[in-house]
């Protein structure tokens, strides 16, 4: 249940009763139902999980502190017994219908499993690669999550697989790996399938963050290896592809079970990130040798394949007369425009990147409204502010100067304040109650 949902519903129900839309009895029944469902479930789950995390640490520090007096096999026996006790506890909790507690105890069992691996490694002087121990822990935790349908254990497994991936990278980047580590994807996909099966939004968020991290690191590796920014351009376009898929799913197949809006949010955040890096490359790269290479981008098969995929999705949306066609078409336009920006010709147009970033941020704000995703709208404002800052830095000390910047920014804001609300009223599919947003912008 969303935060603030109940109090909002109470206010709304009161208004609806006053307006005669709802009888007082029906409003009471609705509120009773909502209150009964609230039941402290989500909050108590949080508290239980925090408690379990404390217990995990208690188990680890206890064994570290009182270790010396015990025989080695006794210590191992103690750890195994603690692990079994957690699973027996989870069975008892599950049979009494306390699924949240059962879930937390499975997480505890997996935590003790990790402690056992570390401590056995220490006691018996097993000193292979540390990442192998993390992988063993992650795999055991994943099995527990899958077999016992435990979301808590799934979260832990996702985090451990991400740690394993990071440990496999060269820590000092002195000898950067020349190949992308696809093994992380091999662990990511089963986790994603399980998150989908268990309807776990928390796990989905962790997976999204992990995947973005993996993609960015892989793009850095490829860019470093090939010494061009073509792979980086692919990365930029790929985020538009992900957004397009989520846009199609949100009003259609609902393939991600309601996680679409979060995926769009993560895509928008990533696009802002890549555009920022992109801009930095252009601003700080006086010798544009690398940028000239990007002229070849339109011949670069992975890039063209990504554009073709977005175009196919747009075509499908149009065929189905989906209201999403508009935003998906913009995904294609912005993904394609990204490549053009890096060509030699575009370098001669003043403020090309800034125009691109401005258009992008306005689209984000608008898409947030159309899709009713507040986060996307907020990210749009954030991108707009960043672009303004960028324009300021680029105009300060030039012919245009800071006065020119303030004049432009002021005009934009005033004209925007006059015309934006009118524009919004004409906009189809605008969700109700979004009137306060433009004021917040100015």
């Amino acid at each position, binding site marked *: 249940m969303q935060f603030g949902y109940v109090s909002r519903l109470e206010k709304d129900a009161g208004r609806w009763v006053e307006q005669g839309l709802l009888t007082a009895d029906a409003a009471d029944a609705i509120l009773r139902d909502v209150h009964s469902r609230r039941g402290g479930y989500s909050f108590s789950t949080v508290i239980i999980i925090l408690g379990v995390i404390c217990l995990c640490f208690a188990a680890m520090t206890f064994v570290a502190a009182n270790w010396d007096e015990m025989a080695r096999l006794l210590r191992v026996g103690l750890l195994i017994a603690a692990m079994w006790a957690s699973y027996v506890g989870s069975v008892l909790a599950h049979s009494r219908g306390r699924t949240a507690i059962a879930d937390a105890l499975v997480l505890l069992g997996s935590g003790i499993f990790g402690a056992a691996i570390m401590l056995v490694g220490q006691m018996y002087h097993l000193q292979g690669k540390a990442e192998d121990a993390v992988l063993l822990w992650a795999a055991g935790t994943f099995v*527990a999550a899958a077999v016992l349908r435990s979301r808590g254990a799934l979260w832990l497994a996702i985090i451990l697989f991400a740690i394993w991936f990071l440990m496999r990278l060269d820590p000092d980047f002195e000898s950067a790996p020349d190949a992308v580590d696809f093994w992380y994807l091999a662990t990511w996909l089963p986790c994603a399938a399980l998150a989908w099966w268990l309807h776990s939004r928390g796990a989905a968020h962790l997976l999204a963050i992990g995947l973005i991290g993996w993609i960015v690191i892989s793009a850095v590796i490829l860019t470093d290896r090939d010494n061009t920014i073509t792979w980086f351009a692919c990365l930029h376009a790929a985020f538009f592809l992900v957004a397009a898929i989520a846009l199609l799913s949100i009003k259609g197949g609902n393939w991600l079970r309601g996680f679409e809006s979060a995926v769009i949010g993560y895509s928008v955040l990533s696009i802002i990130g890549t555009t920022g890096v992109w801009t930095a490359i252009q601003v700080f790269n006086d010798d544009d040798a690398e940028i000239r290479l990007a002229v070849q981008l339109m011949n670069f098969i992975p890039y063209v394949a990504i554009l073709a995929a977005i175009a196919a999705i747009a075509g499908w949306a149009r065929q189905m007369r989906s209201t999403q066609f508009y935003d998906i078409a913009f995904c294609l336009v912005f993904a394609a425009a990204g490549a053009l920006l890096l060509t030699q010709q575009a370098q001669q147009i003043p403020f090309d990147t800034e125009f691109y970033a401005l258009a992008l941020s306005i689209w984000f704000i608008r898409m947030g409204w159309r899709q009713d995703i507040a986060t996307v709208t907020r990210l749009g404002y954030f991108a707009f502010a960043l672009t303004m800052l960028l324009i300021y830095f680029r105009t300060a000390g030039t012919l245009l100067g800071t006065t020119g910047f303030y004049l432009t920014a002021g005009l934009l804001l005033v004209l925007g304040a006059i015309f934006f609300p009118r524009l919004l009223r004409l906009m189809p599919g605008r969700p109700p109650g979004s009137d306060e947003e433009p004021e917040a912008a100015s």
Partner: protein
Amino acid sequence: MNRRGFILGAAGVAILQSGAVGAMIANRARNIANGREVIVESGFVDPRDLFRGHYVTLNLVVGELNAGNVEIDREFASDETVYAELQEGEELFWTAKKLWHDIPEAVDAPFLRGEITLAPAVTASGNAEGEDALDPASQRYRIAFPFDRYFAPKLRAQELEKFRQDQRLGVVLSVGEDGSGIIKGITVDGEIIYDEPLF
């Protein structure tokens, strides 16, 4: 999920996870039982106190070799896997005889697998530009072995700390056929002061 399914699942998970921990211990016991015993010298110890317990860092002598004192099958680069062929030394310890890229079938000696962290070409002996850097005797191989620390009970770690610089510390290793090494014990001046039990 029904009750019976959950009970079976929980039992399966508990058995699997316990089995994984048990297998770690069993594998080690098997490797110790089947491995060849060698004693290599370690530089003096550096006690640490981490939250996971006390351990001492081992500076193995076979991990720091003068290029002039060891044979190689061919040139090594950093990050390459290396197999150090060991021979019994004149005194208490085994020493490195030759560095290999792979374990040769014809040689019947224990091998320790490690990773080259520094190869002579990039070794700087004070001034990298000077002639010293080109002198083979001053060039070194540095090899990282997976067994670079010894977790000791608190009292044992404090004892190790007290040993004097003129005493010679040895690490008893059980070396497997694949070059893996497991610490079996610690010696001081040739006397075993800590003998690792199998379990």
